[in-house]
């Protein structure tokens, strides 16, 4: 990113900054693509979350490359990467770090010294996050929202950028602890990873079962400063009032019994999206707009990201579950029913 956000004074500079942004994203995408086969949409959404400075919850059955994606991303970004394998006996101190007694050989005195946990990284892979107890899961709350960790009464700032990429398995429910709504709400996007397509699967087999296994080394193609600059650019992307209103109407439509609620879906939703949902929508849409070569967000950007940004923020009713209606189904219906045209 050669153009600083503070220097954006002309249309040309804006266009150049946006073009640079796209170049960076393309570079990153290509680097990830060297390791990860397929899953272009997932990669795209992860990049959106990265540039929007938001956390990602990846959900998918085992073996679809969730961990590989996050690891590769960490390598490609050249950021400090750490991984936490969540287990039922994982303690918060195992995540955050702990105070330990250290002997000073010079003075012979003992003192408490904070030993950082794996959370003190820039890219954090929270693998199988739903296997840990709520107590351990909640250790991430402050870090995700405030980008800081408080241990022993002392608050420590986390290095920016800070990105949590959590994974969870949707089928193994025994011995798991579903994430509480407060924790879910802190994820910018919840990305569903689907099975690989035929061609992608063939490539995966070629790369992993051949006599000479491909051992692609991922290079760091982006610095923390560049990422931070890109995240700043995202913040200044234009959102017209009527486009923002569309995002607001979408979020309000998830509120059961609300003024803007969709009557057909009122009984299907128990809890609607929080304001973070609207924030996530707008931020993610901004990134999507730049990646699409535009310097203003459109309602189509918002509609395209509605599922990823809202699916983990609404709670279905028993009626919806009985009817086999998923969160994605509810959101798609809301997108269909809420008019994209400006409402005056």
């Amino acid at each position: 990113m050669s153009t600083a956000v503070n220097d954006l004074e002309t249309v040309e500079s804006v266009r150049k900054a946006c073009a640079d942004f796209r170049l960076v994203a393309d570079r990153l995408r290509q680097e990830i693509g060297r390791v990860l086969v397929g899953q272009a949409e997932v990669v795209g959404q992860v990049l959106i979350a990265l540039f929007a400075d938001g956390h990602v919850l990846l959900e998918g059955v085992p073996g679809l490359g969730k961990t590989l994606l996050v690891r590769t991303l960490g390598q490609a970004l050249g950021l400090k990467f750490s991984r936490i394998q969540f287990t039922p006996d994982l303690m918060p101190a195992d995540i955050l770090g702990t105070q330990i007694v250290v002997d000073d050989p010079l003075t012979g005195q003992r003192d408490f010294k904070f030993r950082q946990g794996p959370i003190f990284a820039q890219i954090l892979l929270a693998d199988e996050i739903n296997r840990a107890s709520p107590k351990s899961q909640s250790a991430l709350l402050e870090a995700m929202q405030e980008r800081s960790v408080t241990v022993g009464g002392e608050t420590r700032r986390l290095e920016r950028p800070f990105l949590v990429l959590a994974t969870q398995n949707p089928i193994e429910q025994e011995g798991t602890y579903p994430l509480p709504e407060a924790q879910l709400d802190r994820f910018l996007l919840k990305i569903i990873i689907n099975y690989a397509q035929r061609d992608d699967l063939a490539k995966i087999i070629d790369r992993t079962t051949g006599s000479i296994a491909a051992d692609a080394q991922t290079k760091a193609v982006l610095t923390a400063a560049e990422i931070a600059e890109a995240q700043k650019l995202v913040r200044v992307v234009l959102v017209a009032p009527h486009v923002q209103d569309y995002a607001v109407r979408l979020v309000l439509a998830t509120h059961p019994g609300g003024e803007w609620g969709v009557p057909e879906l009122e009984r299907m939703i128990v809890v609607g999206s929080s304001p973070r949902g609207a924030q996530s929508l707008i931020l993610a849409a901004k990134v999507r707009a730049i990646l699409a070569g535009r310097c203003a967000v459109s309602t189509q950007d918002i509609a395209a990201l509605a599922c990823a940004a809202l699916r983990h923020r609404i709670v279905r009713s028993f009626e919806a579950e009985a009817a086999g209606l998923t969160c994605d189904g509810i959101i798609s219906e809301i997108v269909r029913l809420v008019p994209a045209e400006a409402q005056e």
Partner: protein
Amino acid sequence: MPNITPILDVVARARKRMLLGQLMGSLGRVTLWAGVALAVVSVATKIVAGWWSPAGERGIWFFVLVGVAMGGIALWSYLTRPNTQGDVAVASVIDVRLKLHDRLSTAVAVAERSDPFARAAIEDGLKIARDRRIMEALGRAIPIEAPRNWWAGPTLVIIACAVWWFVPGLSLGNAQASAAQSEGELQAARDAAKIQIDTLQAKIETNPELSKALGDGGDEKKLGGDLTDEKLQSPESVRRETTRQVNEVSKKLDELLAGEKAQQLEAMKDALSRIEPSKSGPLKDLGEALKRGDGAAAKSALAKLAEQVKDGKMDEKSRAELAKKLAEMAAQLNDAAKANDALKKALENAGLDGALAKNPQAAKAAIDAAKNLNEAQKKALKEAVQSQAKANEKLEKLANACESMSSQCKSGGKKSDNSEGKSSKSGEASEGSAAGSAEGANEAAEVLSEMETLNELMKDAESARSQCQSTGADPSEKLGSSGMNAGRGKGMLGERTKEKTDTATRTRKEKVQSTGGDVIARQLVEAPPVVGESRATLQQLSGEIGHGYEEGTEEDPVPANLRELHKHYFGDLKKKIDAKSGQAAPVTAPDAAPPQK
């Protein structure tokens, strides 16, 4: 502030298209609701009679007014619509329909901002607005077309109109309103009937003789009188009563036109038509008028002639000539009186001797004695004989008058020349001749007056009958009741009585005792068919058949190729009849051969 006019132009054009589309949609909705409303009103009007009934022309105007009102409402709502479609909203519609990623709407929305992102967005919008393809795409994205179900409204309107005009009312409920409507219709029917009756009455009253002739039974006094009867409480009953009364009059007119007076006039005209008028001279006018059957002209010509004869101003030669002509005319009139051609033919048709026409008494006796005639036929024949006799009497009177005038001409005319020294005997004779001539002339004038009166009567009766027919009299009522054939085909059994129906007075056949025999013959008649059993014996029938066969073969010989078939048919028939009656055949077909099997 950047100039976004191209974007606003696109927006303005799109707005016009949207408004036109909305107007068409409004029209469609208004038409649909109008159709629903009209259909409901139409059905309600049919179900509840009298609830509301702008019939006829008023109905058309009602629908026109409803249409104009609906159009007015649609136009008014279009013209006074709230302008809710701002530029951003319209631009947003364009963006969504053309998938422009909100470029136009964002440009319009941030038009007043000056930050670089806003300016970039405006430039993006302008770039699209300046693209010529945008206008073409706009036509496809915002089409001006009729609503999808535009046909529903007009269809409902048509159905409502059809129900209104073609579906009869059910008259359910709302009896009071129904009664009010019925009262109006009843009054309208009474008014129409009164107009018909009054027109007919006026036509009849133009001729006092006709009025008198129709008033024999006193029924004409009731003409139109019963229409206000309390029993006539429906338009249909009023119409029926009107038709019945007109039929009554029509029937009487038929009887008059086929009655004795008509036959008498007809006989006189027939006889007078034989006269050969002189082609010149004083008798030319009289002869021609008589030949035409013009009583008024003949009377005038006769009066003029009598005046000439009475004046005595003609010279001797002219008088002699006139006397000769008068004598010839008298002879012609006498001959005409004796001809009786029509009566002779009627008698012969009835199987009687035509010579009986010369002797009315003998003819009547023969008619009474005839076994092959029924009572009605006998009556008709007797009337014909009577009419002919009266006509002959009048013709003779005319002939006598001519003879008297001829004699007066021969005797020298007026007795005003006594002073010239002629003998008193001669003067008396002349005076007697003049008196006889004057009396004859008076009688002739009376005859001609009667003839003229009858002429007028028949003419007016014919006119009145035409009026009746145009008023709605049943033409079938006239069948078999006119002319010399009156009464034919009415059967031989039972007296016919008159039966009053809703619309007419019909002739009904009385029930008679049946002998239980087979129906052996039916005859086509010029009247409503009457089917009954005959009491004629088989023997009588076989005789008639045989007689008919003889006559047939004599008058119209059977072709050679059919002769054998003819014989066998009648032979077989005869044998079967004889076998049925159990008697030997008293009458046999002369040429009948035994049937060949």
